[in-house]
């Protein structure tokens, strides 16, 4: 239960946090983490280097690490036996277009039953003074249109569903 698999970019690290045996990919690691602020700020100390690191959860098993200078590193963490389904696998059969952010639907450019091509603009969303064209993630037929102009939508809400 103290063995973790951490993915950063396309690299994978096996981290062992057993007492008296902290290793990464089998090699001992001499790094300390000091809590600076209960909301998620840490000091990552490695020998004489002390780095501020802000950590927060994006969703189950996904963590964002913010470094000095605004650099953000996304990591996926799983215990060895409960490896979660990877985003890549889920992407193979896209069922709908979802809102990438909160915003106002300005325009809907497709109708139910219409055939669309990949990258065709389906919906125009406005957020923070900026209009954004939401393009189709796949070719296919539109089964349902769930929003209409003037509607506020949350990040992640379904806008359009594809037929299978």
């Amino acid at each position: 239960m103290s063995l973790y698999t951490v993915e950063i970019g396309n690299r994978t690290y096996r981290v062992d946090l057993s007492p008296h045996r902290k290793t990464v990919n089998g090699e001992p690691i001499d790094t300390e983490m000091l809590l600076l602020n209960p909301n998620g700020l840490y000091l990552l100390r490695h020998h004489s280097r002390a780095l501020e690191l802000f950590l927060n959860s994006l969703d189950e098993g996904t963590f964002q690490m913010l470094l000095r200078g605004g650099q953000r590193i996304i990591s996926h963490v799983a215990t060895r036996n409960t490896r979660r389904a990877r985003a890549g696998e889920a992407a193979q059969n896209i069922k709908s277009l979802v809102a990438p952010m909160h915003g106002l639907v300005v325009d809907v450019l497709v109708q139910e039953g219409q055939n669309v091509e990949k990258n065709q603009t389906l919906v125009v969303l406005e957020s923070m003074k900026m209009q954004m064209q939401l393009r189709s993630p796949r070719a296919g037929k539109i089964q349902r249109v769930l929003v209409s102009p003037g509607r506020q939508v949350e990040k992640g809400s379904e806008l359009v569903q594809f037929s299978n």
Partner: protein
Amino acid sequence: MTRPKILVANRGEIAVRILRTCREMGLPSVAVYTSVDQSALHVRSADEAIFIGEPRQYLNIQAILQAAQQSGATAIHPGYGFLAENADFARAVEAAGLIFIGPRAETVARMGDKLAARRAARKAGLPVLAGTDAPLPPDLPVELIKTIQYPVLVKAAAGGGGRGIRLARSPEELPAMIEAARREAQSAFQDDTVFLESLVQSARHIEVQILGDGKGNVLCLGERECSIQRRRQKLIEEAPAPGLPDDLRRQIHEAALQLGRSLRYRSLGTVEFLLDDQGRFYFIEVNPRIQVEHPVTEMVTGLDIVQHQIALALGEPLRLRQEDIHVRGAAIEARILAEDSQAGFLPSTGEILYLKEPGGPGIRVDSALYPGMKVGAEYDSLLAKLIAWGETREHAIRRLQRALHEYQIGGLSTDIDFLLQIIESPAFLKGEVNTTYLESFSPKPPEPSPELERQLAFAAALYAHYQQSRLGQNHPNRPISYWQMVGWREQMNRL
């Protein structure tokens, strides 16, 4: 005489900034706020705060005037955006017997119509870009479309802030771009009038800050360079413009003064120019209001230009003479946006879980952020501005770089890493950029060294480990979310 009392008809960093000057002038102040801004910083920076309703109410002239009446305000500062360039608002404020802290309504109207502004500039003797001097008719004759020199810009007559502009590269593209510009203009300004203006290739954006007393006395507070733009939105601005020959600088200043004098300009304003790579400059537009990037001018001149703007509006004479204005050193501003630079610059929303803003020598922070703030999608993505002053431009850039590294905003993705990439790029360091610089700017995102990444993997595992053990044990030390607390807040309000 009634004691002046200033209502700031705005929100975010600019409202906080104006309210700071009110405090420094000893003037009582009033903020207005909507349902999503109840705990915003500008509410707490004013002596009074009036609730005006749902999020779009900052655009509601009647709601603002009612707040002024309710609070006994005698003057209204519009800030930038929202109603700042709305001539009806300026008129309504004065009709209500209040002072509008800005130009005369007729000036706002005239400069708001980009076609009228072109005519005014040409009349004052300024170089104006080739283009149509009248609105485009609904259907452009095909013959005409073919005679135009491409690429050409389609611009909304009522436009501003980079909105309602499209670039057409060929006769084929033109009709669609006109349509797109009209649609955006209609949605943004309720006016779909557009016109054509020739495109200046490799242009730098140079603008001049002016301050007029409305009686024909106009001062020039120096120029700013704002060529670093993404999707026509300025990201980084500086004063003075780097590498500008002295005589060209003087000519540009003089052009701005000429226009200001011919308009008998009142209050603060900015005259915007494009400068081509041959050293020719062209008038683009006038922004009859305070601008986002005004702090760089303040840092090099040492003036609080909002203070001078308010004093003038309250009837005091212009206390400055042109010879009192001196530019010292260099200042650069970086806009901190709630946009995820690592995900296509999508607006980001979230809660500020941790905040540490930079400080120390030569640093100014104009920010609306506070720990616990919830950043939503209702408004502009500008969160804060970081401004660095230095003895030289290079010194200012190094300070900005140092301070951007210090800026920590936990819980929300921002453009801080992208800003650093820009100011560390060789072309920017040399001061050799134009408004198209960011179109082709796609720096390799910095990657941690293999050794650091190994440590970060360790850190992530440690964090996950703790989270898991906390969830398992229902640990008393569970970090608290601001939004978990809302239940309590509502409970207290109900008491």
